[in-house]
């Protein structure tokens, strides 16, 4: 069985250690977005339990790394939490994008904060430092500490587009390079506000309800799925050309009911 990487130039066999078949073991590498990583990893574990000859290597790095790795052929599947940019599609033509799950972005505060809900406009004002104290939105008299993601983050660009309407956040915003980092900071900083992928939401922080047209929408999987929760996006896996061999059966597994159950278990939004 020859996988996609092997059909390239001979040098590629060498440079693309992932998609080799040695000693009857089929092997692929999946790399990219840390938001998609929990799904990929968990699915890989379950898939390998059922397929003794499969070796699926999963690594993070970020959406940019995922796109580049698949474009340059150093991986078999790239993961991204954002759409490909026009630069990327023109540099690497022939990439095939598969949506494997959906994701909502939850706005979170420290559990000690008495504020339970905000409007999108209020969140925008907070992130642009027009509101700088929690008492202005009905909370305690505490300075607001803005926490966001790094400027290359897929989560941030989505937040900027949906909530900040493509305007800049205040430069005083603290930046973390992962969902976990934001979670950690918000959990230990009483005045903090942050935004994370809904899959990372746990009881160390409080997810704020969004006030949309007078309705209070809780950031839950059900609300994202129904479209009521307004801040959601697709999570992507990318292949060079249509997926083949192990890549195909692995992606098929994620899209299958069993695979989508894993997506749900990890706290993300299933397709359909």
């Amino acid at each position, binding site marked *: 069985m020859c996988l996609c990487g092997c059909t390239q130039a001979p040098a590629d066999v060498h440079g693309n250690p992932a998609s080799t078949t*040695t000693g009857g073991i089929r092997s692929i590498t999946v790399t990219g977005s840390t938001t998609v990583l929990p799904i990929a990893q968990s699915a890989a574990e379950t898939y390998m339990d059922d397929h003794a000859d499969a070796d*699926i*290597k999963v690594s*993070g790095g970020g959406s*940019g790394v995922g796109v580049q790795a698949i474009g340059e052929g150093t991986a078999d599947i790239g993961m991204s939490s954002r759409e490909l940019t026009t630069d990327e599609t023109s540099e690497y033509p022939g990439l095939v994008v598969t949506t494997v799950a959906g994701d909502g972005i939850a706005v979170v505060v420290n559990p000690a904060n008495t504020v339970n809900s905000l409007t999108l406009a209020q969140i925008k004002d907070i992130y642009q430092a027009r509101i700088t104290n929690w008492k202005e939105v009905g909370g305690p008299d505490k300075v607001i500490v803005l926490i966001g993601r*790094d400027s290359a983050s897929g989560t941030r660009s989505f937040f900027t587009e949906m909530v900040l309407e493509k305007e800049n956040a205040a430069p005083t915003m603290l930046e973390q390079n992962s969902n976990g980092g934001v*979670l950690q900071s918000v959990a230990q900083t009483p*005045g903090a506000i942050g935004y994370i992928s809904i899959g990372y939401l*746990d009881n160390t922080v409080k997810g704020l309800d969004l006030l949309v047209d007078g309705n209070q929408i809780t950031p839950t999987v059900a609300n994202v799925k129904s479209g009521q929760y307004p801040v959601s996006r697709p999570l992507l896996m990318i292949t060079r050309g249509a997926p083949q061999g192990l890549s195909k059966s692995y992606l098929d597994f994620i899209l299958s009911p069993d695979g989508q159950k894993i997506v749900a278990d990890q706290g993300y939004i299933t397709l359909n």
Partner: protein
Amino acid sequence: MEVNAAEGAKGSDIPAGKTRGMLRVKESILKSIWFLCAIFAVVTIFFILVFLFWDGYPIFAQVGVWNFITGMTWNPTGNPPMYGIFPLIVGTVLVTIGAMVISIPLGIGSALYISELAPAGVKAVVKPAIELLAGIPSVVFGFFGLVVLTSWIQVTFDVPTGQTWLAGSILLGIMALPTIISVSEDAISSVPREFKEGSLAVGANHWQTISRVIVPGALSGITAAIILGMGRALGETMAVLMVTGNAAIIPSPIWNVLSPIRTLTGTLGIEMGEVAIGSTHFHALFGVAVVLLVITLGVNLMATAILGRIRERQMPTGEKKKNLLFCAIARSGWMGGVRNATPWIGAVLLTGLMFLLSGAGAAVLTLGMTGGVITTRRRIPPRLVQKIAFALIALSIVVVLVVLGIILWDIVSKGIGYISWDFLTQSPRDLGRAGGIFPALVGTLYLVIGAIAIALPLGLGAAVYLTEYTREGKITRMIRTGADLLNGTPSIVFGLFGFAFLVLYLNFGVSLIAGQITLALMVLPTIIRTTEEALKTVPCSVREGSLALGATKWQTISRVVIPPAMPGIITGTILSIGRAAGETAPILFTAVVFSQRFLPTSLFEPVMALPYHLYILATNVPGAQGYQYATALVLLMLVIAIYSVAIVIRYHYQKTLHW
């Protein structure tokens, strides 16, 4: 060392004339090999520079160098995008200054304690403990900083967030300590005993001897230690980005240590992973890397210049043998300058301690007070001065050990409950929330062994060439500068270089070999520097004796010079192993995957690694805190095991060493 074997095989049956001819050929071949090793560092730094400029050029062309450097706003995905890195440069400089204020006094104080004041038994415990500090991976420091240090700062100073300049500086200060202590201590210990005895014999007390004879004598080594430490602080990525808040602002006012801050390395660390390759933002990040490298280049060149001036003054013209020179210095006016400076070194030491213990205000106060005391110092009896000095030195080592204790206690107490046989022998499950870490453990061993196997021969060869074959001249200066620059090169830059050059250009793929070479490049300067210092401590009389008895240059080096220098060489190697085992940034894009089912069977397959595993657990997997601490603990125990072996070897050598 095949060369060694070949030499051993050369028997007495070869006619004397032929032997001499062959020896001459062998000598010149060896010399060329060592030269190639030495020039390697220069070639590498050149490669890295060219590569960074290549990818950074588009941003300079688009924005303009001046606007890029002096721009006040960094917001590459803003509307419109802004590529101004001035706040980042200020952040990098401030964080490094803060770290040095903490680590230089603590480091030199601890080194003095270990080499001059500590009873043998205490020394035997303290020295390895300090080396252990070097083995704590940056990602562990970062995690510890995020969880413990930033909370402490937030509560103690009652600020909205503890993610501040102060947190970054404290963490970097701690991380630079082992380097500064180990290298300074080696330098101080290598000051010949006769000097100390002579000083004491003419009636100077112990502190006077330390401050006016020993410290000046070891000054070049101590300077080297500080450069190495500063290199570590400037280039650190993972720990810094986890605790400084990464807000691209200039503190207001500028000395506000409680302001969040963002460094150049932090910017690379958090943004490089997700940026779209080939975009303006991507090139801007390479621009950041160029600026970072130019800053480290500037700092290192400055330090090299200072070092060069000290050496020149030490050296009467035409005199090349350093070890004969100490008598000359004793008479020269240079000593006077250092003598006047020594109390100020003490003042900085005290200030740093106060800074660490109770913040900036107290530090400024202390500086003023000690300044006043020093200017009126003549009236204080020497005995009292000695008491105060020794108390400060003891205090510095206590602070270092308490910090080490707190970090170790935190990791051990929270991690030990999760360690089991299964944890060590199984693959991770559920993203590392269950199962074990076996593949990561093996992967880290592979990476470290490979890195040392590449870096040690190269580093040894370079150091041998620098100390044994050359006079101080243009070429040595160039090579040494190359090694210093390589040392100052941030680990994240090695990672980028490894990715573009090894993974993509040489088509290795994300693989074990790419990671090993990248790590080897990173630890090479440490090995060169420490080996060089160790070789320098061997007295010239020993070399001359060997040569006078008819031994060739190489015989002298291999049988007379290297064996007694072994403890120093091993110290350098230990530091390198610790660093290679714990680094995340260089392997991030070159060698690691988060999970794999089978161990790698060839050098061209990727691996798992403990620090990367820990990094992902710490930043991307909620609910894995126990396993995270357990992973950190295993990484620590692994390093302790490696260290123990090395320490035993060194102890053995020290016991058999007699001048």
